[in-house]
């Protein structure tokens, strides 16, 4: 088998067209990595400038009432991620700016896609675009006549007479084309590693390793199926058109149709419905800005009882701040319910989409590619959760200062000094570790393994019936 693979490669290398395509394609891949990295670094600079600017505004507050500061709030910008120079995932369409303030959990806004006219339906020139759409086509073109050519020239018969088994031959042909895909993949990963040698971490290495493995599996499926068709059909053109048909259905039809359908099966609320439902639930709770609110009065009675005093003026703490925090606590339960409901729906949509991998391994590839490069919706949601957790700590810190900082109830002119505002920590994004999210992609990996096994079974059983001539 090794000899056949060696021979195949000898033929390939001799072909000028093949060499030309390989050189041109490698140049495009190199360009995609270089541009991808350059763009991410430039975006990173914009992000850092904006982050520093907003932080500078916050630490420059001379003096302010803590609750006024909660309204003044701050902003969190979605950080760029070097991994997304390999696969940008959803980053182009999600927002980038999130306002962090008291009383409300805001939504992330200002996506890149909304800032200009439409350009590319398939995103920027990232290695994932080439690896997902173009490399498989290249492999199909290399493999579609690998066996049928041998049949037509009569070499297959000769090889069988010389002792080669058809199954060995087909596997060898599959592996030789597959190795070409692996070579391109290795080239991309090596170039990526060289460009980012200073930023490589264990997590990045594991993620890129998984990225490499899933693409390898997908390429094996593509090569195996193409060689199988080449062996089964008498005519190479039929093998080519069959595989092109499969490629179109897998990459163009099914992902789009399935994703749109999943969104219909598990419908998200409209923005207006979502906001109205939250406003409705919010109105059932305590209004921090309204001392005459029934629930505020109840809380006041409770606190007065706890401290054993008759009026808020006798309290050693600032009851206004306490009411604000009670308002926040109630609000948080409302946000958890409604935003949590959206997250649950998104999860259901994702799971339905993942099951599409049963009929289409390209879906599994897309999911794992985005997931391992930390640019899928799961990672986006994890980022949003981190910001929301930060918001809660941030607001509580301000409210606690209002309560226990030494001011009295009703004293809204009381202000904290600059030292306090400087002590409030800035948001620090902690990248999601692959170990935390790997289980979400196990179904995709499993389906791709099953597909690979299916292709092997097809080759083993299917080739028994092939005509040698």
């Amino acid at each position, binding site marked *: 088998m090794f000899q056949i693979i060696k021979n195949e490669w000898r033929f390939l290398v001799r072909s000028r067209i093949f060499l030309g395509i390989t050189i041109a394609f490698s140049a495009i891949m190199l360009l995609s990595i270089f541009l991808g990295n350059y763009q991410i670094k430039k975006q990173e600079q914009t992000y850092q400038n904006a982050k520093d600017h907003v932080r500078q505004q916050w630490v420059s507050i001379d003096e302010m009432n803590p609750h006024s500061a909660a309204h003044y709030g701050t902003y969190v910008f979605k950080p760029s991620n070097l991994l997304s120079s390999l696969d940008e995932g959803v980053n182009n369409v999600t927002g980038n700016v999130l306002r962090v303030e008291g009383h409300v959990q805001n939504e992330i806004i200002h996506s890149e896609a909304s800032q200009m*006219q439409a350009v590319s339906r398939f995103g920027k020139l990232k290695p994932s675009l080439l690896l997902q759409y173009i490399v498989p086509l290249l492999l199909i*073109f290399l493999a579609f006549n690998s066996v049928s050519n041998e049949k037509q020239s009569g070499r297959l018969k000769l090889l069988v007479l010389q002792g080669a088994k058809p199954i060995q031959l087909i596997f060898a042909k599959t592996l030789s084309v597959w190795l070409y895909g692996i070579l391109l993949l290795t080239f991309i990963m090596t170039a990526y590693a060289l460009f980012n040698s200073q930023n490589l971490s264990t997590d990045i290495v594991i993620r890129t390793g998984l990225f490499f493995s899933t693409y390898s599996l997908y390429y094996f499926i593509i090569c195996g199926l193409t060689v199988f068709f080449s062996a089964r059909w008498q005519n190479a053109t039929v093998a080519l058109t069959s595989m092109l*048909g499969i490629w179109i259905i897998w990459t163009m039809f099914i992902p789009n149709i399935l994703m749109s359908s999943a969104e219909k099966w598990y419908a998200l609320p409209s923005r207006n419905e979502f906001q109205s439902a939250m406003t409705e639930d919010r109105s059932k709770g305590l209004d921090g800005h309204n001392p005459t609110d029934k629930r505020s009065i109840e809380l006041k009675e409770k606190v007065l009882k706890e401290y054993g005093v008759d009026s808020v003026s006798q309290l050693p703490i600032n009851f206004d701040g306490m009411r604000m925090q009670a308002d926040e606590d109630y609000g948080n339960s409302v946000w958890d319910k409604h935003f949590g409901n959206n997250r649950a729906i998104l999860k259901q949509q994702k799971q339905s989409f993942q099951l599409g991998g049963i009929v289409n391994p390209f879906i599994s590839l897309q999911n794992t590619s985005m997931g391992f490069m930390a640019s899928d919706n799961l990672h986006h949601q994890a980022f949003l959760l981190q910001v929301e957790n930060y918001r809660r700590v941030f607001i509580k810190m301000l409210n606690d200062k209002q309560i226990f900082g030494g001011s009295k109830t009703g004293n809204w002119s009381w202000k904290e000094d600059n030292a306090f505002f400087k002590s409030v920590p800035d948001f620090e994004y902690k990248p999601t570790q692959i170990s935390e999210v790997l289980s979400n992609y196990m179904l995709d990996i499993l389906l791709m393994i099953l597909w690979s096994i299916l292709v092997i079974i097809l080759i083993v059983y299917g080739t028994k019936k092939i005509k040698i001539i």
Partner: protein
Amino acid sequence: MRSLKTFLFEWKHFVGSPFKILAVLLFIIASMYGLHNGADLYHKQNAEIERINEEVETKKATILSYFKNNEKGPSEHPWVDITTPFWAIYNTPTYHFKNPSPTLVYNIGQTEQYGFYKLITTSSSGYDADMTKEIANPERIQSGTLDFSFVILFLLPLLLLVLLYNIKGQESEHGFLPLIFVQTGSKNWWLLSRTAFYTVLLLIVIFGLMVYGAMLTKVFVADTMFWNLLLWVTLYLFFWITLYFLILKYGKNTVSNTLQMVGVWLLFAFIIPATVQQWIAIEKPTNLMVDLIDVSRDKKSEINAQPIAVIDAQLFQLYPALKETKVAKDTIIVQKVRGYSSEALINLEIKKATQSIEADNRIKNELISKTYWYNPITYFQNKLNQLTHTDYKDYEAFRNNIRKSVDTRIKMMVFDTWNDITIDKEKYLEYNSTLPNNAYY
């Protein structure tokens, strides 16, 4: 005559090829699915607009009931006084809608990148959080909805490829190409007649699909859009036919022709648009709206912290007629009046900040337009977006419309406040008719 025979004979070729028939059927199914996706979005947006209009009517009725019962506002919000211009205008619910065009059935375009309704207040801007897109799965938005335009822009060239790939190549491989040339006289006319058959076939299919789409929404109500769209789709079809025809004319065999056709498609559909988008992202990185953030926080505080005389001077500069109002002539300065009026000055700063954002975006769009001569799919895509009112520029106009409405609202609030007008039911109704819900296509 020979060409006509070749043309008609191609029908036999077509019906004798199950692969080609299957491809056409798949194309029709995908198109119908896409048309329904567009129609669903059209109906969904209209239903949402209707629901919001109903909410607005309920809110208006609630406010009118306060006037009827001589109340100043909701009892749980004692600070609200609807007899003052500020609170009356605050409680005049005005929405601006980007009404979906019936042609949305053909092309969703950039619709899902933006919000399509906006509650107008005196502090609104076209870049508020509620102007962001509807809640949707970002992975679906990223992969794009399969709408009719997707089918046309990306799958039509592939369908053409499937229909044309073996023309001439098959005959050449079987060795009877010279015979055909002898029989038909001209190889160019023979090739043209065969490709013309598929062009006509696809034109009939596309026309049929577009008529089907027109039945899902009221497309024919939207003036001549149907015919404009058909014209551009036809031009797009001819663009690909020409390219493929040239490949077939100069091609040697089926496999090489197929490879070239796929190569051209990959170049125009993937490589060029993706490279352009990457280049633009490098030239003009995503705007993080820091200017707008500065206005909403620091600039706002700065304006409000100014001495009253400075605020007055700025307001008089903005609205010279304000000097003639009752409050301006009064020697007693009402602090609150200026407090509310400073909204006009903040709005001015917001407009300056948004203008710089829009200018930035315009540069990006100009960069995209400059690539059209070698980036045909993006050109046709944006042309379809423009025709179906789902283009960036439509949403820019929607934002401008919002800005104008905010300007009117603020001006009315400032003048009525400075004229010390007490709002009653009639005046409130006048506000509602002057500041109505507004639809923009």
